[in-house]
């Protein structure tokens, strides 16, 4: 799925990364609020879906080579988090949808699990 299609599907607000989203593909997602789970079980290149908007979510995406961060439940990260992700040059999105609904829509649209849980 194209990142832009994902943005439309989940009615996301693009916080960062609009400039390099054209043609960008998402194939797999890993959803968790527990960063240790992401570090243990996610595959590189997955999109991180989380309700955790602390600085640790941004470090996790960096350390685990993830392709972007989608915050669910209308979470918006504070400026230091945005600044950190800006340096990583990955998209940062937020949706008002809950974790359950966001994941359901993406799974139903054919996206694959980005690791085991």
């Amino acid at each position, binding site marked *: 799925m194209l990142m832009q299609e994902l943005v439309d599907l989940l009615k996301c607000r693009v916080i960062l990364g609009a400039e390099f989203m054209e043609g960008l593909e998402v194939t797999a997602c890993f959803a968790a609020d527990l960063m240790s789970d992401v570090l243990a079980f996610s595959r590189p290149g997955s999109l991180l879906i989380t309700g955790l908007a*602390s*600085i*640790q979510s941004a470090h996790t995406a960096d350390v685990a080579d993830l392709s972007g961060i989608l915050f669910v439940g209308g979470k918006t990260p504070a400026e230091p988090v945005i600044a950190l992700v800006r340096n990583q040059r990955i998209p940062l999105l937020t949706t008002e949808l809950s974790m359950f609904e966001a994941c359901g829509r993406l799974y139903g649209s054919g996206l694959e699990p980005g690791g085991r849980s």
Partner: protein
Amino acid sequence: MNENRWSTGESCVSWEDAEILYSESFRIVGDDFEHGGEAAAKIKAKLKQFGLDAAIIRRLSIANFEAEMNVIMYAREAEMQLQVLPNAVRVILSDRGQGIPDIEQALQEGYSTATPQMRQRGFGAGLGLPNIKRNTDEFEIVSTPGVGTTLRYTIHLQN
């Protein structure tokens, strides 16, 4: 003083005399959640500059991030030292803190003494030390309760 020791095997000793090609230390301050992850990020950037394999950088970075968060959650302060050797990368993390009374127990997935504040940061679920073990080739823990803990872990480089 009761020193507790655990390691993945005797192999840790084999690196004692290895030539150190590059070394850099990073300070980590306990309870400083706002900066939790910076040391791991800096080491990752450095290893990328050196052109190491992406999979090895990822494994070491995950171990470093978990180890760094452990210091922030449980210790007063620590020094994380990166060492690049001819055939391996090694990290030595020495903290001053409460120590680990029972290392075998701390290594069990799900065992945790975390507070709600730690869990709010996405950590503290009892996966830290197991995650370090999972991502490294050699791992040693030496801990003295009431004094501190030293972790040493190594990832071998394929030639």
